[in-house]
């Protein structure tokens, strides 16, 4: 049972394991790295190693180290226990409770309401609402927390969730969700440059980015792609940040709508969205369950979601979100690294 997923329901989840020797070799390397993490992370090959994929057995140790969750945890000893024991706001509890049994119901950990998976998820999400009462709980945090819990104990998972919500994707899960709206616009602008054909098609049929990127970005692809691919994307995301989400999204759109052949079947909004929703797994699954998407790492240049995004955000500063529209001054900005 690969990744804890019931194999009949997830036939692809058992695919794509590297040969045992390679796994052992990588494990040894990562193990060695974790013993002097700061030094190892300063080296240039960190990015390359993460793109190759972190060995399954090392993710529990490496994800918290990579995202800074481990150091937050070390700085806040005992904090999680305190949050976990707090009764929490009944309104949030009710909302969270409704979703608990709906996250990865086909994963062995989350099968039973009494199982440690569902109980852990409840505690973890509640703890977050106590930790950040103004942010509260966003339904999209459920799957993210669940994937974290599949890999590590609740305390580590909690601090990773905090890092993801506050450092990696600030404003994604907050009550106004302003950053998702903004990143949707940024995505379209990038698409225009990277794949004009798909861009024109989407414009023609008025398919806005919020129709497809919302779930991709908010759930970090955990509900979209085959599980081995999701994990490889997370390895890279935690090492390089939000730009990974953009790149993967751009590749997905390109796979779905990048050729005239594909576009011919898409006569309207519904057909176009259907195409985006049903990208064949064989196109996505690369070596060892990883990502064909890795092809795109170098090829696309750096769609500059670091610098470009900052500039774009800057240009909108003081304006109400969304008013910047598609003709924002950012269009002319240099996106390159």
């Amino acid at each position, binding site marked *: 049972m690969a990744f804890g997923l019931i194999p009949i329901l997830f036939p692809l989840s058992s695919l794509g394991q590297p040969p045992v020797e390679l796994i052992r070799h990588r494990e040894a390397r990562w193990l060695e790295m974790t013993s002097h993490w700061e030094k190892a992370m300063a080296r240039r090959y960190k990015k390359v190693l993460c793109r190759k994929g972190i060995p399954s057995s090392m993710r529990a140790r490496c994800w918290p180290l990579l995202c800074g969750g481990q150091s937050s945890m070390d700085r806040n000893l005992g904090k999680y226990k305190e949050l976990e024991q707090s009764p929490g706001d009944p309104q949030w509890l009710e909302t969270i409770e409704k979703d608990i049994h709906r996250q990865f119901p086909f994963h062995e950990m989350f099968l039973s309401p009494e199982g440690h998976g569902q109980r852990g998820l409840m505690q973890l999400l509640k703890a977050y609402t106590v930790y950040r009462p103004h942010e509260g709980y966003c339904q999209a945090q459920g799957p993210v927390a669940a994937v974290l819990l599949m890999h590590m104990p609740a305390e580590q998972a909690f601090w990773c969730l905090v890092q993801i919500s506050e450092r990696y994707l600030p404003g994604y899960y907050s009550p106004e969700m302003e950053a998702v709206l903004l990143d949707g616009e940024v995505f379209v602008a990038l698409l225009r440059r990277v794949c004009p054909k798909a861009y024109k098609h989407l414009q023609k049929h008025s398919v806005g980015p919020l*129709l497809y990127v919302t779930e991709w970005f908010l759930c970090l692809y955990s509900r979209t792609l085959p599980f081995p691919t999701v994990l490889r994307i997370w390895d890279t995301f935690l090492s390089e940040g939000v730009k990974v989400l953009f790149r993967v999204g751009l590749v997905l759109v390109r796979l779905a709508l990048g050729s005239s052949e594909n576009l011919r079947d898409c006569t309207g909004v519904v057909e176009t969205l259907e195409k985006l929703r049903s990208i064949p797994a064989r196109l996505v699954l690369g070596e060892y369950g990883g990502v064909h998407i890795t092809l795109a790492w170098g090829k696309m240049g750096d769609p500059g979601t670091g610098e470009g995004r900052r500039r774009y955000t800057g240009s909108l500063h003081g304006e109400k979100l969304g008013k910047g529209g598609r003709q924002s001054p950012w269009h002319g900005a240099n996106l390159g690294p």
Partner: protein
Amino acid sequence: MARHMFRIILLGDSTVGKSSLLRRYTEGSFIPAPCPTVGVEFYSKMMELPPGIKVKLQLWDTAGQERFRCITRSFYRNAVGVLLVFDMTNRKSFEHIIEWYHEVASIQIMEKVIFLLIGHKSDLKSDCKISTEEAEGLAASLGIGFIETSAKSNTNVDLAFETLTNTIYEALKNKEIDLQEGWDGVKVIHKRTCNPQKKRRKPQEKCQC
């Protein structure tokens, strides 16, 4: 012969069963606990109204959690029909219907949007917190119809969509809904005027990425 396209949106609190209702209607299946909808999902289905009129329904499912409204709100204005869904075993979801109604009314640019109130999960009779009379009262005060449905036992699901579609069609026929340029709630496609598929010059052309 004209073909119609109606865009219908489902609104209501989280876990009232919007996605289940749509899945039952479009796929004929029922999953007890589907993942929470994040953002907007879409479905479509063809329907034939009695005199041989074909209607393609574009059905938009929305996330019920309040914070997603900033995303879902932009889709209200392009809908001609709205299903306001509440859970018959959940009083709060019923009380929020009026809020959902005003949400749409305040944004919709069209004079006429067709609403239908849905009391969902009617199979859970013993747990019902809202009586049929009470729900009918609310529907009457808003001037809209009311139907009790259950995706689990497949009760009245087709009826609900047929009722809404018929009402929209009637309103269209009586010119209560007018078609506006740039509004996607209703599209009428006249077959003869459709361009035959243009031959592309380079069918194999790939994106220049």
